Each structure stands twice: as structure tokens, then as C-alpha cells.
């Protein structure tokens, strides 16, 4: 624990406080910036949506905008679609990224470097370019349809403009970060532990289930939290590839704010979105804190 570490440190009590003070001063500016740019806007948004100004300009407490959001079927549909997309993407990301990460961690062949390069590649493609590329490939009469047609196979229903369009795009877009985080997490598993298990005759599946996965919990959690936070507020891919309705929270908020000139409801949607993201953020902070305690 950090506290006991400090108590046994070979520094006098006086020196400790002075050092603590210098440390606090050093972080003061970033912490103030954090308050100004992040904490203050959050509380201001919550305040603005809970204390509404009436015609005379005086503010009074009201949960009206939240009551509207949670009683409006259209808004709720958008929220459900966002949650569904996030959940499906989260699962698909882990399912696709984990095997790649395991391969990259344990393979010693030269091919692994190329696989890694390929897995990281989507990081360098802006999502607007990706959207148009996907429309051309998986869209109707796109490259996939042409290839299927040329070998005499029937056309597939295109995911373009259906909820599966953004799912494909978002998984593609978030794959590199997830792979990188899982590879980093796998790096902390020692070869010795795995070899020891193999020596006593454990099958590869048992090694995965009993040695690797239990040690991976933390990085899986971190990777999932990051992916979820990115997907929840995604804008470009859901807007260009997804259906007109229900729409994900990103396009919905943008439309409410800009097209309907309705900052109050847009802020309410933002606070609701933030609430869900906070939930995953807490997971992330919790796992980081647990990691610190361990080390």
C-alpha cells in the first residue's frame, strides 16, 4: 500500500510535507485545467438541465427535460439502439481482438510482425474515409456483391443503412486500440507460469481458461471500457452508415442541437450519455486503482 511505503521511506517528516507541497504545486496547473475544461462543464451542463430559466429569466428546479427524455419513445429508441450497438460492438471487439492478441503474444514467427501491422492499420484511417470505403465495398452493388455475383453466388442483404452498418465500421475502427491493450495485458503473463502448467499436462484450452484469462481480467476490462466510451458517442460512422431512425446518440445530439436549435434537450441527451459513459469510466478507474494496489 502506498501509505505504508511512505511511512518507511528514508525521508524526514518535514521533508515529506515540503516534497508533498512541491508535488501539489507541480500538478496544480493541470488539475486546474482539468477542473476548468472537464469538471466545470459537466456540472454546468447538469445545472443547466435541472434548473430551467422561465420567461422572466429566474431559474427554478425542474426535472422536466429528463422526464421528457425518459418518457419520449423516440429518444428511448435512440438510447436503446446506442446501448445495443455498444454491447454488440464490445462483444465483437473482444471476440476478434483476443485471438489476434494471443497470437501476437505467443507467436515467434516473422509473420506476427505483419499481422500486428495489419491489426494496427485501421488506426490511421479517418472514419469518414472508412465510411465511404465501406459503402463502396459492403454497400448494395458494392465490391462484395460483385465478387459474389462473379462466382455465381446470390447477393447478400447489405448492412448499409441498417443498424449493422455502424457495427461493422465501429469494430473495424476500434480494433487496433483493443488489440494493443490486450497485447499489453498479455505481456504481463510470464512464460514460466504457462510452461509450468504445460509440464503438468494442461491442454491449451485449460491454459487459456485457468492461467491466461484470470490474469487478463484487468486488461479486458480496460480494453472494453475504452471501446465502449468511444463507441457510445461515435458520430461519423453511425451517421453515414446507419439508419435514419433510430439514430445513435451522437447524431441525435448533434441534430437536436443544430437542426432543432434546442440546446436544452441536446444537453439533457448529453448528460444521459455521460451518465452511461461514467458507469464504464468508473470500471476503468476501479481497475486502474486495483492494479496500483497490487503493484
Amino acid at each position: 500500500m502506498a501509505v505504508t511505503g511512505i511511512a518507511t521511506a528514508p525521508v524526514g517528516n518535514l521533508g515529506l510535507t515540503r516534497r508533498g507541497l512541491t508535488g501539489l504545486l507541480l500538478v496544480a496547473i493541470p488539475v486546474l485545467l482539468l477542473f476548468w475544461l472537464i469538471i466545470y462543464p459537466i456540472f454546468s451542463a447538469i445545472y443547466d438541465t435541472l434548473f430551467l430559466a422561465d420567461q422572466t429569466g429566474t431559474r427554478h428546479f425542474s426535472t422536466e427535460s429528463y422526464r421528457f427524455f425518459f418518457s419520449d419513445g423516440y429518444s428511448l429508441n435512440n438510447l436503446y439502439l446506442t446501448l445495443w450497438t455498444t454491447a454488440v460492438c464490445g462483444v465483437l471487439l473482444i471476440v476478434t481482438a483476443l485471438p489476434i492478441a494471443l497470437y501476437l503474444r505467443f507467436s515467434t514467427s516473422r509473420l506476427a510482425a505483419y499481422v500486428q501491422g495489419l491489426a494496427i492499420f485501421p488506426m490511421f484511417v479517418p472514419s469518414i474515409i472508412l465510411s465511404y470505403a465501406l459503402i463502396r465495398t459492403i454497400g448494395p452493388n458494392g465490391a462484395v456483391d460483385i465478387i459474389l455475383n462473379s462466382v455465381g453466388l446470390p447477393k447478400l442483404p447489405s448492412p448499409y443503412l441498417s443498424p449493422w452498418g455502424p457495427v461493422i465500421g465501429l469494430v473495424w475502427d476500434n480494433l487496433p486500440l483493443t488489440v494493443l491493450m490486450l497485447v499489453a495485458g498479455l505481456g504481463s503473463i510470464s512464460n514460466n507460469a504457462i510452461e509450468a502448467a504445460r509440464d503438468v499436462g494442461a491442454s491449451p484450452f485449460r491454459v487459456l481458461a485457468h492461467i491466461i484469462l484470470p490474469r487478463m481480467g484487468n486488461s479486458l476490462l480496460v480494453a472494453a471500457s475504452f471501446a465502449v466510451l468511444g463507441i457510445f458517442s461515435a458520430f461519423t460512422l453511425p451517421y453515414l452508415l446507419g439508419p435514419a431512425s433510430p439514430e445513435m446518440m451522437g447524431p441525435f445530439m448533434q441534430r437536436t442541437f443544430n437542426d432543432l436549435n434546442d440546446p436544452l434537450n441536446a444537453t439533457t441527451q448529453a448528460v444521459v450519455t455521460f451518465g452511461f459513459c461514467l458507469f464504464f469510466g468508473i470500471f476503468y478507474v476501479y481497475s486502474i486503482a486495483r492494479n496500483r494496489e497490487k503493484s
Partner: protein
Amino acid sequence: MKRREFLAASAAAVAGAGLMPRFAFADEHTIELYSGSDSNIIDLWNNVVRPAFEKANPDLKLKVVDAQDNNGLRAIADRALAALKTKTDPKADMFEHFDPRLPTDGIKEGLWVKFSTENTPDYAKVNPMAIDSDYSLPYRGSQVLLAYDKTKLDPKDAPKTWDALVAWIKANPGQFIYNRPDKGGSGGNFVRRAIHEANGRDPSKFTVANYTEDFAAKALPPAWKILNDIAPSLYDNGSYTAGNSQSLQLLAQGVVTMTPVWSDQVLQAIAQGVLPEETTGLVQLTDLALCGGFSRMTVFTNGANKDAAMKLANYMLSSEMQEAIITKIGGFPGVSWENISDDLRQKYADVIPQTIPTFPSGDWETAVNDGWYRNVAPNLSRS
């Protein structure tokens, strides 16, 4: 230093000094024009308007800045309104296309120039149908048409009335798509045509000023009913593209047979080979045309080059520029047709109609767009 060198050097210095104030002078008269339009319009301004205007006015320069979209323009307008209150230069002189009702207090605070024949000599030429507010100057328009694939639909069978169109859409499921009304005017004006259809095909029934919630609650639901009725027959049982160009793309890829398009965009797509010239058909409804829209310039009262900007605004109404709009981008003029040369009027008579129904923006826009998202887009029969 030799005498001759000295003379040459001092002559150069004098010439330089003589040039310097002219540079500064020229810099003071650079009109800062911001546009939120698509790249074809920015190209028109840079390649056609700017050279011609600078040639006609050697002491003036024009700088065209792409503000990306209407939100970009709004941010600059907000900045100009703040500059007006502090009496500073907004660093912007005019907008290529903007609604002067924004920012909300703009007109009240005197942010925009009020156009009249006094400050704009050619104001009388402007097409009266295009005038939307005294604070904006319509200079170009375009119309929504139906573009179709002639290989799948014989031009003689192309629907020419709303009823025929609806019948065709239902008879050919999956072959028609329009885009979300707030994300591009081609779909937006298709939706507005349905509103006209549901309200007696009389465009004069809707004005910016006559919006009330009660009237909207009466006028719009029948249109939602019409649109919901055709929704299951649209592409993918009721999908809507995210913009004008995506609709054109689906037509070009042979996914759909017919889609509403902007006249200028489809002519340009044909000119660029995106759509094949010989098999792309264009048709307009004859019972009531699909709505069009005008682009209206606004000029800041507090811009450093207000007078020069007003000169440019008037220049855009000249027959040279108005005809360039027809010939270069396939748009139609902001001035009345009698101000356009006879050959041009005859040559483009098919594409450019004599009357252009319009639908007011303002509160109607919000009501139509949000109403469509809530009532038509979540077409329940899809799932």
C-alpha cells in the same frame, strides 16, 4: 557608390515606396466572403466570379473562404455579432448563403445590411418569388428533379404527377430512395412536396410568418401518412440515405431506379461522368413541381469592406454572373427571367422551369424535419 548606381537605387526605393501604400490599400479592400456551400459553388466563386469581379474592379480583391457548412457560418456570424457590440472589425464582410434570422438577435441589433434599390441598384431585377427577407439577397437557385435510369424505366412511362409517382414507387418496390430531409435538400424537398400534396398543392399556404403549432399539427400529419404509405416500397423497406450525394451514388451504382436530385448536382454528375449521359433521365412533376431553393447572400453592416461587399452583391445580379450560374453550374438565376438573354432562356427552358414552388424555412423547417424523424423514419413495418 557610383552616381549611376545611386540613382538606380534611389529610383527603386522611390518606386518601392510608391508601391507600398498601394499594397496596403489593396489589402484594406479585400472582401472576405465566407461560404458554407458544396465544392461546386466554391469553385464557381473562385474560378468564375473572382477573376471577373477583380477585372471589373481593379482596386478590389475577393477572398473566398470555405466555412465548411452552415454551422461554420453561424460561428462566424456569432463572432460578428459580438464584434458589433464592441465596435470591432468582425474580419468578415459577407456570406455566400445564409439565413439572416440567425443569430437570433442579428436583425434587431443591426448586424445585416438591409437591401433596397438605394444600396443595390439592380435589386429591382431580383425574382420576387425568391425574396425571403430584406436582409438577404437571392443570387442563384436550383430545383429538385427526379433522376432515373432509362435502362430500367422507359422515359415515356416516367411519372409526371404525384399520383403516378406514388403508383410507380408501389409497383416497383425497392427502386426508389430519398435522403433524410435535414441532411440534403433533395430529400427535404421531396418531403415538402408531400406536404404540398396533402394540403391542396398550394405553395402559398405556407409562409415563414404563418407558422403556428396548431397549423403545423393540422397540416403535417396527412403528409406523414402519405410518406408512411410509400415507406415499405422504398429501398430496403424504408431506408433513407444520409445526403444528396449518397442518393446520387445509389443511382449511379444501379441500386435504385429513381431518386430526387438537385438540378445543379445531377447536371454536374452527368458532366463529370459519375452518371452516364445517355441513360440518365430527368423528369419534373407537372401537377406541382418539387420545391427549389435559393441561395441568399448576406452582408455585415460592421464589416471593414462593407461598401466593396455591396458592390460585389450588386455585381452578382449582373447578367454576366447570372448567366454564368446557368451555364457553369446548371443552377438558375436569382433575377427574373426577362433579365436573361433569349438564347439561354430557350436553351435551358426544359431544365429550368418558369415557376419554382418554395417552402418557407424558419420554424417550419424544424417542424418538418423533426416531425419526419419522429413520424416517418421509424417505419414500424421494417423490422
